[in-house]
């Protein structure tokens, strides 16, 4: 049975929190919260079946965040001792005093009920850190060998990244002990022609908030939601050979049927980041950027077609952003961001929720490490399927001249979230409602609102897939966050397609 890491709970977490909060209060802090974390990660990487990377990382530490006379102060330490907790409290107060001279916006936090002592454990069956690395490496070796046995495959990269994150948070009203597990298995096949031309093809299996039971075909596989790796790997050689031999795309405007394996990343970049309130308010202006979806447009910005219903949540059972309580003690929720194609919500933390008069925070504060201050990070942002909506095949059948896009690859978007460009793993030509072979060298480029307003059909629940990433970057100092995005397939009309070879020549 899954359980919270006993090595983490063996630390006197509540005592450390009490010591730190008491010291901060003595020194005049009006608010003090305490966080301790242990984050274990293991990366196993194989190149052509040979071990290339295997390492275990184990991050441990505590942090104290205070508000002193309206200014933040934050300090972190790696030693989980009372002396260290007290020192971090003193340092956080000292940082707030130094910073007060250049702070002109008093910090106030939105109210949140206190939940007392609570705990939360993510939904998984097999903890990856309770299985020998050798057994996991052996699975990757088998996968690699199977692909390398095919003459059409030149090289194979196979990797498995696993994380187990334990958090303890206390602010006097809530004391939350939580643990979640996630993993990202990836296999990439490469084929090289004698001419030097090469192509790659990667598995579409998304990263997931699951344990090793996710690895279909492995000794730990089981249950609903297990990804069928044997089936996906068996298809890769033929798919890759077809891609290598495929015609190069003619640039122009095409209708696109976008598979969930590609669309999740477009949602992430053009909706997820654009509806982060800190960006809309300009706090990320010098780095991650701002958003065209500013607060004055809330309730009337026509983001996309009326079919568009986008939600934010930190509650989806296997979502990578899912947790019980955020890093400010806010119980996590689900809410609308875009309703009927109109901007209706933002992702919040307690400070911004109060400042903008949104009432309660929706629980998007997150720090990626005990050494970092929480900032507003992305919830699982998902495009809801149309009840009774079409299957992917039915969407394709509605296209006369178009392209079906699968899998994410290259991505880029501007700092206000207008202009984006994406590539993918596979592109199929659609002619008269049918697929007619792969194309290569394809990228699609659009402006966010043009793209979403061109969405003519949203697939039904049968095509819905939860995609996502481990490595969403934001903030200074830089922080990475895991996040999921669910969506069905969708049909966009008249999207600009580039030929990437022509672009580079």
């Amino acid at each position, binding site marked *: 049975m899954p359980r919270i890491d006993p090595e983490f709970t063996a630390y006197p977490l509540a005592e450390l929190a009490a010591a730190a909060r008491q010291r901060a209060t003595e020194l005049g802090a009006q608010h003090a919260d305490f966080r301790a974390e242990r984050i274990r990660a293991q990366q196993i990487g194989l190149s052509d079946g040979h071990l290339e990377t*295997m390492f275990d990382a184990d991050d441990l530490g505590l942090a104290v965040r205070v508000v002193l006379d309206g200014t933040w102060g934050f300090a972190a330490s790696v030693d989980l001792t009372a002396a260290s907790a007290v020192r971090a409290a003193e340092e956080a107060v000292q940082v707030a005093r130094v910073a007060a001279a250049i702070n002109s916006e008093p910090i106030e936090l939105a109210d949140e009920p206190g939940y007392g002592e609570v705990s939360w454990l993510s939904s998984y069956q097999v903890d990856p850190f309770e299985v020998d690395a050798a057994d996991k490496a052996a699975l990757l070796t088998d996968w690699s060998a199977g692909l390398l046995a095919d003459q059409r495959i030149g090289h194979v990269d196979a990797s498995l990244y696993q994380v187990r994150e334990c958090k303890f948070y206390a602010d006097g009203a809530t004391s939350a002990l939580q643990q979640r597990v996630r993993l990202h298995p990836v296999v990439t096949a490469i084929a090289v022609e004698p001419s030097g031309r090469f192509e790659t093809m990667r598995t579409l299996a998304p990263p997931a908030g699951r344990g090793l039971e996710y690895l279909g075909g492995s000794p730990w596989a089981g249950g609903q939601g297990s990804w069928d790796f044997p089936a996906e790997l068996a298809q890769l050689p033929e798919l890759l050979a077809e891609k290598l031999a495929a015609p190069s795309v003619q640039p122009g405007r095409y209708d696109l049927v976008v598979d969930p394996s590609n669309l999740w990343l477009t949602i992430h970049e053009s909706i997820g980041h654009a509806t982060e309130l800190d960006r809309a308010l300009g706090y990320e202006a010098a780095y991650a950027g701002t958003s065209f979806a500013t607060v004055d447009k809330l309730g009337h910005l026509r983001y996309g077609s009326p079919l568009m219903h986008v939600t934010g949540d930190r509650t989806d059972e296997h979502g990578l952003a899912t947790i019980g309580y955020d890093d400010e003690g806010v119980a996590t929720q689900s809410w609308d961001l875009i309703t009927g194609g109109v901007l209706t919500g933002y992702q919040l933390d307690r400070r911004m929720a109060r400042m903008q008069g949104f009432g309660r925070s929706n629980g998007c504060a997150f720090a990626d490490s005990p050494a970092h201050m929480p900032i507003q990070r992305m919830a699982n942002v998902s495009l809801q399927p149309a009840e009774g909506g079409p299957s992917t095949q039915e969407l394709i059948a509605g296209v006369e001249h178009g392209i079906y896009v699968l899998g994410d690859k290259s991505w880029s978007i501007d700092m206000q979230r207008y202009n984006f460009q994406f590539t993918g793993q596979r592109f199929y030509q659609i002619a008269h409602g049918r697929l007619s072979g792969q194309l290569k060298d394809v990228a699609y480029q659009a402006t966010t609102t043009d793209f979403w307003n061109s969405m003519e059909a949203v697939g039904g629940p049968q095509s819905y897939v939860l995609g996502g990433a481990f490595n969403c970057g934001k903030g200074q100092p830089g922080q990475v966050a895991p996040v999921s995005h669910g969506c069905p397939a969708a049909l966009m009309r008249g999207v600009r397609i580039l030929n990437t070879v022509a672009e580079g020549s």
Partner: protein
Amino acid sequence: MTAPREPAAPQEIVARALAAARCDDCVVIADETSSANLRWAGNTLTTNGISRSRQLTVIAISRSAEGTRAGVVSRAGVRDDQVGDVVQAAEQAATQGPPADDAQPLPAPAGPDTAGPAGGPVWDDPVDRTEIGIFGAFSAALGGAFDAAGSAGQRLYGFAQHSVTSTFLGTSSGLRLRHTQPAGTVEINAKSADLARSAWTGQGTRDFSDVNVSVLHADLSRRLDWASRRVDLPAGRYQTLLPPAAAADLLIYLYWSAGAKDALDGRTAFSKPGGGTRIGDRLSGLPLTLRSDPAAAGLGCARFVLAHASSRESSVFDNGLALRPTEWISGGNLAALIQTRHTAALSGLPVTPTIGNLILDGGGTATLDDMIARTGRGLLLTCLWYIREVDPQTLLLTGLTRDGIYLIENGEVTAAVNNFRFNESPVGMLARTSEAGLTGPALSREWGDYFSRTAMPPLRVDGFNMSSVSPAS
């Protein structure tokens, strides 16, 4: 509560870990980092913080007839009584895993070339640290800039960070090497009150003593003035001047893509059709040199290999190997690729591991202003953003212009221009570079967080591909 007790010094931790090891060979790396940061937006502070971290990495190596295995365990905040646990975890991992492809003997104690600069800390000296006080003079000057910006109808955004990492490397082959890396950056973004005009500047620094806020602010004000006139231009190929920061944005990516293993596998722009690498190929008609040098003035970095994990471009077996000045591009020709000893053996080329700085030099003497004055019509960039690889075959990259792109007409900057999405390869770009100016320190906007030690010249590139207009400002 027990009395506060400082953990053992990292030198002691390295010694204890090596003493506890029962495996055939062992590498121990102890890192101690302290850091401080300030972040501001709209002329006021937003977040801040200080942190200290301590990380112990143990690489246990087990050698047998079936092969050499390495177990790598890296753990933060290890208590003194847990050092043996980390060693045991690494040893257990070494017995479990498959053989390591990159196995080599550990480097023997090296000559004086891995020692730090004269006067620098020696092995037994205490650990260097930074603290929030590093920003004392800087934050006072920044407060003055906030006031001045407020009066001038500007808003300032930005970030300043400083860190000191002391790394101690010990091996069972007898190496005891220490490296202290101070690293800092400051970035300031100025916007007009309506947010329609935006300018950016950034600087790498080792200790903030060389950061002059009023000079940086004056440069930003000049750029905002340039933007008082705005011209819309269509997508297309333009003669473009890249200031050093934008050159760094593209050339750091080229450097990171210059791994020998991937080139040998036929998977990069540096692969030779039919097999092998493109070393020796001409990449630029100009006599450009792209190089790294651990002792480069103002850009100093580790003089020996520090590899916390093996990857395609690094090997834990190479820890402690001396790093020597390396030319990646020499006289316009591709001269070296990133190698471990393992990949060097595969390729038959010299061992040229990755180094933590990058310098492009074409021998030019022109400043950016000189190059503007000699431009009939062209674009001037500030920096590039959201750079991602589109096609590894050609190293085609995409991304955006950001925070100031200007039109040059008859030797003068005459207006700001709409932003563009570009699709360009740094490899293809070098072939179309017609001028490289005077090399100086540069901070990459895109990668400066991870790679802050660069020196670049301003570049003149013909036919830079602005693929589409971005409405962002």
